[in-house]
């Protein structure tokens, strides 16, 4: 638990290094399943296009296609970690993100990931009542203690995986003595905690909630 708490604390702190007032609206837009263009993001955040472009420079991992954003943490570009939200097939960079984003988006989700090495699928349903239907029940999530968070993706995400059992995670644990594996339920509790920390901080920073509910498409 100590180790996990440490990881959690560091993650929370580092998550907030990113510009949450930009990132949370981006997350919401990406969750609709379509590439996000900069003017749309500017509109969603109430900033100018120029301001947004400037802020995006500080997010080196961001994924673009044809000048539009297709991923940052939550991505339209396939990874091993699938996250299905409102019928949209999305992906995340990080196994742990699949357990953070549903809370950030305020929605239920279906998750499917593949055990490194064997490809055995791990499936998780996340609803208002927590992580339900973890399959197989033995599944675990690996965590590392991030050192350099300038690139979250390479420093942290690339080491966070779903494994179908602690046994399957053994080779990874041997290669990463500083790492740990935790049951999915624990990882989910960690993810929810992180998400709530971010939402609270963001809500404090702004007068109004950062994550708007999905809007009805503009008419005509």
């Amino acid at each position: 638990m100590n180790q996990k708490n440490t990881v959690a604390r560091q993650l929370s702190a580092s998550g907030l290094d990113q510009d949450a007032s930009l990132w949370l609206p981006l997350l919401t837009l990406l969750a609709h399943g379509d590439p996000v263009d900069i003017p749309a993001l500017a509109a969603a955040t109430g900033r100018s296009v120029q301001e947004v472009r400037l802020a995006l420079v500080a997010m080196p991992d961001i994924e673009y296609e044809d000048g539009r954003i297709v991923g940052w943490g939550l991505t339209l570009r396939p990874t091993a970690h699938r996250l299905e939200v409102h019928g949209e097939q999305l992906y995340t960079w990080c196994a742990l993100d699949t357990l953070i984003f549903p809370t950030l988006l305020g929605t239920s989700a279906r998750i499917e990931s593949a055990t490194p090495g064997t490809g055995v699928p791990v499936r998780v349903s996340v609803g208002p009542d927590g992580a339900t239907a973890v399959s197989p029940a033995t599944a675990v999530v690996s965590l590392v203690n991030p050192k350099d968070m300038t690139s979250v993706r390479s420093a942290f995400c690339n080491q966070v995986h779903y494994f179908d059992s602690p046994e399957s995670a053994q080779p990874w644990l041997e290669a990463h003595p500083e790492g740990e594996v935790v049951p999915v339920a624990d990882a989910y509790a960690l993810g929810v905690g992180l998400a709530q920390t971010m939402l609270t901080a963001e809500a404090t920073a702004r007068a109004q909630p950062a994550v708007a509910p999905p809007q009805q498409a503009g008419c005509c």
Partner: protein
Amino acid sequence: MPEPTASDYDLAVIGSGGGAFAAAIRATNLGKRVLMVERSTIGGTCVNTGCVPSKALLAAAQARHVALDSGRFPGISTAADPVDMRALIEGKRSLVEGLRADKYVDLIGEYGWDLRQGTAAFVGTAADPVLEISGQDASRSSVRAAHYLVATGSRPWAPPVEGLEAVDYLTSTTAMELDAVPESLIVFGGGYVALEQAQLFARLGSKVTLLVRSRLASHEEPEASRALSGVFADEGIRVVRRATVTSVRTEAQSGDVIATATVSGGNEEFRATKFLVATGRRPVTTGLNLEAVGVQVGDRGEVVVDNRLASSNPRIWAAGDVTGHPQFVYVAGAHGSIMVDNAFNDAGREVDYRHLPRVTFTSPAMAAVGMTDEEANAAGIRCVCRVLPLDYVPRALVNRDTRGFIKIVADATTGRIVGITAVAQEAGDLAAAGVYILEAHMTVDQVANMWCPYLTMAEGIKIAAQSFRTDVSKLSCCAT
């Protein structure tokens, strides 16, 4: 070159689908001598491999789905056995045969036109076109007609994808002939055939993945795509959007098909027992030798026709899918009779697609009539829309399935309704009602104030119309 001679027939029809039959019936009723030429099964796509078999299978799959899904009704407990695919397909076959006999084959004798089984091709010249017919018994004959109708339909089309030709892929036609439900299935495409086949096989028990270039039903309202994505997710269908399939191969060991696709700039591999290509249909004109008789053919192989359905040769007409016009059998049927009126009565009738209803028979179904929001804007109509989620429709509430919506697009100046789209059980019937609304030039206020029976799905149209002036969350039952 043969001398011009008297015509053997007033009308020679190539093909025997909905457009061909409509023309042959109309012409026969006008007292014309008609020849129909068919190289394969009488009846065309709709009855043999299209609407009829697909809707018959969907209706059966729907019954099974209801039994698996009754848990939403407290106190009701039902279950379903695995599907006996051979029996299902045999049942479908016998239904198709019955309809083919009743609605096609037997009518030929009743109306009394001539039928020749064989492959037709034009010979002669633009000024004197002649139809040469090669029989299945290698016989050959030539026919002269006053008018010719090309009603040869369309066939499934697959885009050029590396490895696809080497893979034993399915089309909707062959998928509906399988003798076992595939364990898993990739459906490649996002149009109505792809949607219907994906849900059909999911409901029969396959694990289905849908690879879609942009979004589901990309020509319809975006709300429709989203609603169907949600339904499909609920039924365990994986919908991958923005997927460009780059290569397909069969894995020797497992026999599985492995498709590689670019998805938003990344790559992903998809694997399934079977691979179904549903990327559209293209007109069938190869081998007809149309150029020899001055008939212009478009980029997709379609016979280019004017709005009266005449080709660039005024004695050669086209009807149905082969024109490249909207691929609905009721369009083909309308084409057939319009063409006859124009050819023989110089009626100058034109096809008017403005209020053409479009239905995809998923469940909930997706249906539309008139313009989408985007089309109305593109047409320069200053418009106003409302999207009514089915949570506001009492019928959906008592059915305990509120997935879907009804959207109305209206002219902002006049209030006239110019388009209706719905995702709902019975959406097809709503679109049919929508045709009357549009044809009668009704406004949202008129529809909001007309009688409508409570607890029908169609009541949603009225409530959507009311939502233009009222906050529907503050509507009491039936208060207007």
